[in-house]
């Protein structure tokens, strides 16, 4: 009798745990929203939501690419440096017009992605090592191109950074659009399915004749391009190119958003909705702590706690 009850309790617990893993991130967002509505002055205002959405936009764009990389059981540590590279390239090429500058920035991200992908797919370097190399080299390169912060006075860039359409900032529209696009790619394209299969079981994917190398390279190229684009968005918002500090620790924020959002580090699964919620969760957490003027060290500790929780959840999920 006791054993029976125990068995049921643990089964219930397991189900609860699984539900938390699946939907915990949404619950977290909800709780933070309620806490802030109750305790933070002036929280419930359009302006405030706009601020949070605008601040989270570049992080989310990076996290989308990161979700793809993690889906293949990889990771891309070079995203922050790609943002720096992108911001340098924008400043350097703005003289040719905003479109050329945008193209240059994206190309920069694509090239880094190609290098990352080739190292991972052809040379067989561990993703964490391959992208670490470019994480270090990328920012160095960015600083060679543009050694110091530089004002960006282009009106189009300024409009991109602070303009809106029917009250919704461009940055937010773009990030949302990209999230939908990436979700579509993951769900509906051959590439998306192959990516998941490779992440779930690379030997099986290989023996099934999947173009494993091509898919891996494309994943890192997309990740690089998205990070570069996030660099463009951040530059537009700042109206300055700041390769020294733009995107520092971005890889951690992005990985946290993805993992908190329920994408397992063991690959084979990509949750875009969860990634969006994960990015929002971190943003709200930071905002809450700042708004209540808690000591800056608390912010770091809180973020660490979230990461630990996320990794714990991922580990549970990994056990499956």
């Amino acid at each position, binding site marked *: 009798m006791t054993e029976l009850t125990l068995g049921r309790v643990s089964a219930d617990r397991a189900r609860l745990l699984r539900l938390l893993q699946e939907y915990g991130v949404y619950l977290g967002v909800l709780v933070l929203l309620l806490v802030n509505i109750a305790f933070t002055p002036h929280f419930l205002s359009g302006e405030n939501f706009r601020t949070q959405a605008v601040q989270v936009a570049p992080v989310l764009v990076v996290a989308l690419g990161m979700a793809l990389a993690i889906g293949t059981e990889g990771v891309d540590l070079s995203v922050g440096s790609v943002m720096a590279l992108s911001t340098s390239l924008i400043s350097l090429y703005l003289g040719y017009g905003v479109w050329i500058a945008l193209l240059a920035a994206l190309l920069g991200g694509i090239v880094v992605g190609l290098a990352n992908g080739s190292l991972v797919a052809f040379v067989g370097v561990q993703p964490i090592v391959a992208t670490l190399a470019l994480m270090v080299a990328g920012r160095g390169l960015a600083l060679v191109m543009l050694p110091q912060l530089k004002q960006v006075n282009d009106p189009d860039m300024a409009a991109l950074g602070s303009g809106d359409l029917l009250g919704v900032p461009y940055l937010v529209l773009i990030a949302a659009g990209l999230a939908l696009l990436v979700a579509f790619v993951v769900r*509906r*394209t*051959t*590439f998306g*399915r*192959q990516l*998941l*299969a490779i992440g*779930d*079981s690379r*030997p*099986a*994917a*290989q*023996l*099934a*004749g*999947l*173009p494993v190398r091509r898919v891996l390279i494309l994943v890192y190229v997309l990740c690089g391009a998205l990070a570069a684009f996030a660099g463009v968005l951040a530059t537009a918002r700042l109206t300055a190119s700041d390769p020294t500090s733009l995107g520092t620790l971005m890889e951690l924020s992005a990985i946290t958003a993805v993992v908190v959002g329920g994408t397992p580090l063991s690959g*084979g*699964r990509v949750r875009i909705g969860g990634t969006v919620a994960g990015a929002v969760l971190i943003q709200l957490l930071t905002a809450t702590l700042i708004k209540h003027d808690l000591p800056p060290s608390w912010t770091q500790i809180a973020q660490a706690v979230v990461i630990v929780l996320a990794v714990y959840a991922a580990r549970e999920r990994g056990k499956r």
Partner: protein
Amino acid sequence: MLSVSGLSKTFPSVRALDGVEFTARAGEVHALVGENGAGKSTLIKLLTGVHRPDPGGTLTYDGREVSFATPLDAQQAGISTIYQEVNLVPLMSVARNLFLGREPRGRLGLIDFRRMHREAERALAELGVRVDVRRPLRELGVGAQQMVALARAVAVDARVVLMDEPTSSLEPREVATLFGVIRMLRERGIAVIYVSHRMDELYAICDTVTVLRDGKVVHTGPLAGLDRLRLVSLMLGRDMDTVQDEGLTKFTGEHDAGREPVLRAEELTARHRLSEVSLDIRPGEVLGLGGLLGSGRSETAKALAGALPVDSGRVTVAGTRVRGGSTPAAIRAGISLLPEDRKAEGIVPGLSVRENIALAALPGLSRFGLVDEARIDRIVDTFVKRLRIKASSAHQKVGELSGGNQQKVLLARWLAMNPKVLLLDEPTRGIDVGAKAEVQKLIDELAADGLGVLLISSDMEELIEGSDRVVVLKDGAVVEELTGDQVTEDRLMRAIAAPAGESRD
């Protein structure tokens, strides 16, 4: 020296060992043989303290009943193990590796390097190995590394030495050295337990043999008087006197094979694995690949499917050469492989039945990179019905299905590609009896439809009854081809048992 009695080991789902009796005597080389899943590795792990036996079994060592809690316990008691893969520290010097964990210490507790190097040189010289003991281990060849592992095993005053397929990556010359060392150990009164599949080696070096099958000891006794054929039949569990006329399997037997081969492999060679393997597969025929474990059957299938890069040799499908070392190229040419390790290399466990079936055919089921869901649904539907795949829905994860249904999903994945040749590596292993019969029937039907099939099976009955012809492999080379009336268990076992060099008569 070391003996076990009534030893059993049960894992959550299987009884790996069942009342095993086994004795290794001092000054004797004892061969431990058996096919995959016979329980050899479990027995080794019990002897070396990796696993604990079920209650009831006793382990006697040096006249006393013992129980080893950890591998270290066993090691300290004097039981040394040499694994297939050398498990030493590649970056440390040869001498450090030899004395790892028991380095000679000087007065201050520091390592006395001079003494260590001197002793290391002496220990290796005794085994006939002359190397600079100061060099890192990884600079040595695999054979020499194996010798260092052996020297280490001997140096710790071992009284029992366990060798698990020690020759699998050795050159013939190195094998000779190894045998010399084993003879020396025997003379010193050490008990050697030797695990190998290589018939010739067993007869060259071993005194006694114990044959395991399905977790039980089916034979134990001196090797000298034991006929090779008898040994093979013991391992495979087939009695050579009672070869059945009518099979229990679902195979019908003969197919009307086309004359021109659909697949032709010429002299496939891969170092240490395959040497000049040539074979033909005709459309509408099932070609069996016979041989013991480790004879190169799976390697041949993988080489054909582009999953194992070959050093030389060529594969042609319908007269066109297939680029080697590329799975996609082989698949495009019409070669599909159902791999031996279904769980690790076949299914994608986290994806649904539907996605698994559509996986290989995906590019063909897409337009501009967008998946055509309706077409996938039609194909999945067709195959789920035709192969009678039992799943709660097409969206169930494949990892949750039974082995037989997983295998059917894999078959469906390949049939959706319309292949010309199907390579089946152990298609019925680990699946229940009912599903086994279904899969066998399916293979038969596929061949009848004109597909060329290559069948690998450790189940002798399945192989003999399912195949129209059988190519027999041994040590990575073709030793015999059985056709027509020759396809019998008796002939197959004779071919496997024949000593090296005498196989073709």
